[in-house]
């Protein structure tokens, strides 16, 4: 296989794995080197807060592809090694061990790292985050039946982990600063039903409250909330968002601002360097954003692959996302502004509903709770940009598929 047009991928997550397959499916024959700071081949993250945390899945089943796949795809994996710098003029990356690897095309898929609470990093046992297999393993080893867990942040990590830990017999309390959970991304009617679901399962959620201070000697013993309550805690799980791993790009002089800035083709300010996945800040209908999702990792990888081989851009698709909490499934497609007006389709059960957001009379985004059928139709409506009256969307006498 010719090394004349080598691709170097920095990172080893979903986007990196997708890029490999996408390049080879385009018939790309250049060398591919995948450099991952973690000593693992790419693995699925969504199970880390769910099946894997529950102990229902062996670690090797988390791999996105088995090791043999990378051999068949003629990828050279360099694992457990960080890239120290990008030498753009020489078109090389230099590794921590001093090795230099040439690239014709460089793809940064470095993802992000969990944000920590100020003052807690490494100082006290019992403070957990969740990003990696190591994090999930550490959390699983730390819990015991009846242990009291305080989860800081009512986002997807906090809520999914709370649900899993509750199933494992822990006492869980979620602290969320906003007046409701998932305030950044989910329609209020759905967030309310999800909070009911957590309450029914014995999980506590306190909104409008954050962590003022953390107490304990070598290990956490309690937290004081912003409204002065002291809550005993054997463990803390901090899920307050993610910082993009854009330092390498920044040091190399690439434009960065909330991640690595890319255009619609996932190219950075250097046309031979792409950025994909969680680290890439890209143009969307709501401005330049980082979309932290499996779908975004896959879409951006496919866009970069097309750019590298000179193929036509893949068809743009609306971003989509899912979250499982207890036996509730939330599926979302499209992007809506924070002040969006949602049209609600009630589905006959209190915990089953779909919300639609329209712009110019067309469905631009939809969020479906325990309504998988509605979600499949909604994805088509968003893709087609079908003009629809909101009254018909919310009329349960009409089947969504007939609209």
């Amino acid at each position, binding site marked *: 296989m010719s090394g004349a047009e080598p691709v170097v991928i920095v990172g080893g997550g979903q986007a990196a794995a997708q890029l490999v397959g996408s390049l080879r499916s385009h018939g790309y024959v250049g060398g591919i080197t995948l450099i991952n700071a973690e000593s693992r081949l790419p693995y699925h993250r*969504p*199970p880390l807060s769910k099946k894997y945390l529950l102990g229902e899945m062996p670690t090797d089943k988390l791999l996105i*592809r088995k090791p043999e796949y990378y051999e068949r795809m003629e990828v050279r994996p360099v694992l457990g090694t960080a890239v120290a710098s990008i030498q753009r003029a020489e078109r090389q990356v230099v590794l921590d061990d001093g090795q230099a690897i040439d690239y014709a095309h460089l793809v940064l898929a470095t993802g992000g790292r969990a944000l920590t609470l100020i003052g807690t990093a490494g100082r006290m046992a019992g403070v957990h985050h969740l990003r990696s297999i190591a994090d999930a393993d550490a959390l699983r080893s730390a819990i015991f039946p009846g242990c009291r867990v305080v989860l800081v942040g009512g986002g997807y990590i906090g809520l999914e982990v709370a649900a899993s830990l509750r199933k494992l017999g822990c006492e869980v309390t979620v602290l969320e600063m906003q007046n409701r959970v998932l305030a950044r991304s989910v329609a209020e009617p759905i967030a309310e039903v999800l909070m009911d679901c957590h309450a029914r399962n014995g999980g506590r959620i306190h909104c409008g409250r954050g962590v003022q201070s953390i107490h304990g000697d070598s290990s956490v013993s309690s937290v004081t909330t912003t409204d002065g309550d002291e809550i005993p805690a054997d463990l803390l799980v901090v899920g307050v968002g993610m910082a993009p791993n854009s330092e390498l790009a920044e040091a190399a002089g690439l434009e960065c601002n909330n991640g690595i800035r890319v255009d619609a083709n996932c190219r950075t300010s250097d046309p031979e360097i792409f950025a994909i996945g969680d680290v890439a800040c890209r143009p969307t209908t709501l401005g330049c954003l980082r979309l932290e999702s499996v779908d975004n990792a*896959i879409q951006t990888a496919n866009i970069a692959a097309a750019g590298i081989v000179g193929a036509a851009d893949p068809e743009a698709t609306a971003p989509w996302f*899912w979250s*499982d909490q207890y036996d509730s499934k939330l599926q979302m497609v499209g992007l809506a502004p924070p002040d969006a007006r949602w049209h609600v389709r009630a589905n006959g059960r209190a915990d089953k509903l779909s919300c639609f957001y329209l712009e110019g009379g067309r469905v631009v985004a939809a969020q479906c709770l325990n309504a998988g*059928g*509605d979600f*499949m139709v909604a994805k*088509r409506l968003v893709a087609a940009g079908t003009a629809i009256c909101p009254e018909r969307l919310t009329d349960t006498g009409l089947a969504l598929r007939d609209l």
Partner: protein
Amino acid sequence: MKINVTDRAGNQRLLECEEGDRLMDVLAEVDLVEATCGGECSCATCQVYVAPEWLQRLPERGELEAELLDELLNSNEQSRLACQINLDTALAGLTVTIANAE
């Protein structure tokens, strides 16, 4: 054990698998389905048509699986989501055709 798979281009493949594998993983490993959600029954990209003689030998469709399949434009009575099919030795020789993803 082996299973018979017809891919989206119409090519027939004999794929190796092991007891306990999910059908979806076997197909994804050779890039025959997207399996975007990694088997969490959320994306429906792993739809397969199961050969009639095998269909009755599988456990029934799950409620969520059925809800997703019912709304796919190209699904029929033989449709299943591969992420919901766990392979055991009784399914050696299972015959499926991969559906196009929407």
